[in-house]
């Protein structure tokens, strides 16, 4: 592979395993190598995993209200978006976003962004570990318990909400269990609740804690998926992770999130997977590794099916926002107005920490409508054309030092700086046609030339290839 092909492949990896990368970062990573970069992403320094590291400290110093935003979703959304933009461990944030897609929990009901951020921290901590542990932690997560009413699930008055979604949306998928299984799973999770917490007045929010109440747990016999015993919640999870349906369900989610857009989840029972062979590889890896997510991600990122899946996934709004802001190096320090970065994905159809339902968001083409498409394009255009931003200034400076002059060189350099994108011939021609209208770059007038470069970058941001991951 040529050096530029290496850079393009690395750009693809960083879009999927992170939120994109500047050309400078891509050069550094290519020098390290593809597989080594995968390992670096999979094995971040322990210190930076969950909390009191630099990104968190910096944000909380300048915006202390992002620590315990309570029922104000904007500050919680801003907090997470700031981490997506600035985390030195982008895959940790990306994996957390993946689990937030699957285990969707929303502020619309929880009314407690503190606990939603705590759940995100849990995804950061356990997201690349083993899936069984993740399910156990999820079952004990206060935001999830409240979201799916398990605090209302009592020995003598069973509430099936958590038990149903555990099977339908979090592990096996519909048509792989019966209504009786839902009931029995729910009985096994009776007594898994949250302890009363100090209310918000007068000193602000205090944390919820998981509380297991043995006296409220139904310890009698249950029959679940053909197994019989006096099951408790963890026993149910042990049975779930032995089911082939679970392997397929989780791998299909991962394929949809990291590799290529699938049909929406409700259609999975009737539509075959986009790439059954790739799905089979992923399922085998997950099973052989004992549900080790890191092992699966390693195989997936290093596979040919992943490397060849360029432009086969429409970026989620969070990816558009975080990726663009990383590229232009905006919001790498907190400043007033931070709520804007939390709100932007919502304008495009994805209010993080506040999904539309427990089903999460519909992805792929569902991200695009006449309003969201304009919001996405305008967001990118406004940033990449802003020559006051340091990332844009670096792009301009690079082009100058590279001696970029002709319209063709301008288009090519712009595509490289925005992720080594390869446009369709038709789009490439249209872009070139626009660039030709301005003639060659005039470096004696840097301000005007910067503006011209910004315009071309903005047009690149509107292309299918940029809007796809």
């Amino acid at each position: 592979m040529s050096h530029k092909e290496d850079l393009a492949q690395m750009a693809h990896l960083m879009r999927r395993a992170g939120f994109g990368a500047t050309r400078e970062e891509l050069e550094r990573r290519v020098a390290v190598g593809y597989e080594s970069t995968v390992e670096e992403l999979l094995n971040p320094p322990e210190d930076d995993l969950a909390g009191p590291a630099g990104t968190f400290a910096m944000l909380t110093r300048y915006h202390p209200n992002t620590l315990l935003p309570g029922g104000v979703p904007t500050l919680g959304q801003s907090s997470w978006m700031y981490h997506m933009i600035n985390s030195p461990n982008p895959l940790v944030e990306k994996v957390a976003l993946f689990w937030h897609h699957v285990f969707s929990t929303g502020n619309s009901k929880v009314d407690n962004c503190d606990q939603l951020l705590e759940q995100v921290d849990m995804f950061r901590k356990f997201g690349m570990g083993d899936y069984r542990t993740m399910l156990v932690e999820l079952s004990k997560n206060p935001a999830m318990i409240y979201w799916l009413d398990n605090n209302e699930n009592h020995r003598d008055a069973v509430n099936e909400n958590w038990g149903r979604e555990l099977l339908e949306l979090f592990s096996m998928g519909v048509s792989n269990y019966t209504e009786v299984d839902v009931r029995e799973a729910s009985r096994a999770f009776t007594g898994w609740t949250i302890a009363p917490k100090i209310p918000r007045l007068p000193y602000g929010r205090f944390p919820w804690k998981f509380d297991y109440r043995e006296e409220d747990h139904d310890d009698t016999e249950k029959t679940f998926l053909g197994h019989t015993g006096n099951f408790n919640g963890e026993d149910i999870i042990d049975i779930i992770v032995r089911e082939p349906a679970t392997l397929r369900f989780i791998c299909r989610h991962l394929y949809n999130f990291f590799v290529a857009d699938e049909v929406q989840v409700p259609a999975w029972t009737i539509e075959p997977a986009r790439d059954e062979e790739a799905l089979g590889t992923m399922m085998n890896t997950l099973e052989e590794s004992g549900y080790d997510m890191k092992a699966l991600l390693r195989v997936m990122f290093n596979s040919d099916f992943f490397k060849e899946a360029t432009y086969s996934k429409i970026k989620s709004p969070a990816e558009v926002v975080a990726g663009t802001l990383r590229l232009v190096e905006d919001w790498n320090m907190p400043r007033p107005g931070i709520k804007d970065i939390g709100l932007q994905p919502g304008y495009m159809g994805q209010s993080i920490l506040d999904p539309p339902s427990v089903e999460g968001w519909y992805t792929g083409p569902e991200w695009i409508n006449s309003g969201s498409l304009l919001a996405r394009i305008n967001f990118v255009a406004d940033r990449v054309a802003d020559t006051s931003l340091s990332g844009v200034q670096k792009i301009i400076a690079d082009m100058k030092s590279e001696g970029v002059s002709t319209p063709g060189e301008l288009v090519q350099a712009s595509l490289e700086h925005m992720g080594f994108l390869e446009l369709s011939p038709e789009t490439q021609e249209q872009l070139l046609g626009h660039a030709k209208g301005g003639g060659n770059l005039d470096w004696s007038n840097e301000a005007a030339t910067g503006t011209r470069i910004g315009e071309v970058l903005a047009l690149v941001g509107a292309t299918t290839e940029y809007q796809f991951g």
Partner: protein
Amino acid sequence: MAIETVVGNRAWIYSHNIGRNAAAGTGFSMPIAVAPAKDGVLFVASRGSDTNPNQRVSKVTLDQEFIHEFGRVGEEQGNHVFLTGVALDRDENVYTTDEWLNRVSVFDNAGNFLHSWGEAGEGEGQFSGPSGLAFDKDENLVIVNSLNSRVQTFTKEGKFLSGFGTKGSGEDELDMPWGITTDDDGNIFVADWNNHRIQKFSAGGAHLGSIGHGGAGPGNLRHPSGVAVDGDGDVYAVDWMNQRVAIFNSDGMPLAFLRGDAVEVSKWGQMSIEANPDMQRRRRQVSNLDEQQARFRMPVGCAFDRAANRLIVCDSQRGRLQIYDKETNYADPQANL
């Protein structure tokens, strides 16, 4: 629950707490710095929030009386965006720093805006994220420049006098410093936030020593945000990320931690609870309520009122101040009382 923290002949006795989370009036919104005045009056700087802009300076009393507030949100003169520090001169005029607007604002004791000074920049006498500020024994202002890691001294009218400090992790360097104080000898103590230590300098900027280093154990600090020194030379480091105040003696030896002792609800806090029956019911259901309620949650600033031998800690996330009285020449009572 340690309501009294005793080390040798010193004791820090929890007195009470003031405040509640409130966007205006009888409470604070992320209190970030405090300056004690005469007669039990306190000036408290609230950082506020991006979504509910309630930054302000509140004038209150130790007896939990609200007097008035000023310096609210805005870029106009007399307002604040990133309100960070507060200090009083001998006439009890109020000086505040704004690390976004890069200026010092001056108010009289009644909160009337007088004037402001300062300009953004990296040069001598310019501001780059001014955060902590304190008066020295000559009634000049020493001000931390957080973003370029410098400490600068000005007359209280804003004339630049001197400065020192470079960014780094070396012995005499600073990295994003935050709080600052001076002692009776004119020495300057800086909360070296990103280096997890307190730095001590002479008035002329000579490095005299460091207190603490990164970690969570005794003698350790994680992102210290505030610093105060009492008349005995004991140093108080607000150990922001470790959720405590670490106390050191004048030689830098660790003495004790304060972790927050607010077992009781403040007067204004009680008003919130009494007005909300659901809050009362829920509080009755909480186990170990006192223990949870008492603790600091990311405290930021502190001040030591030497006239009253009293430590005041901004318990920022809880919207309150926790007050400790220091007793020197403390003698432990007989065991068989």
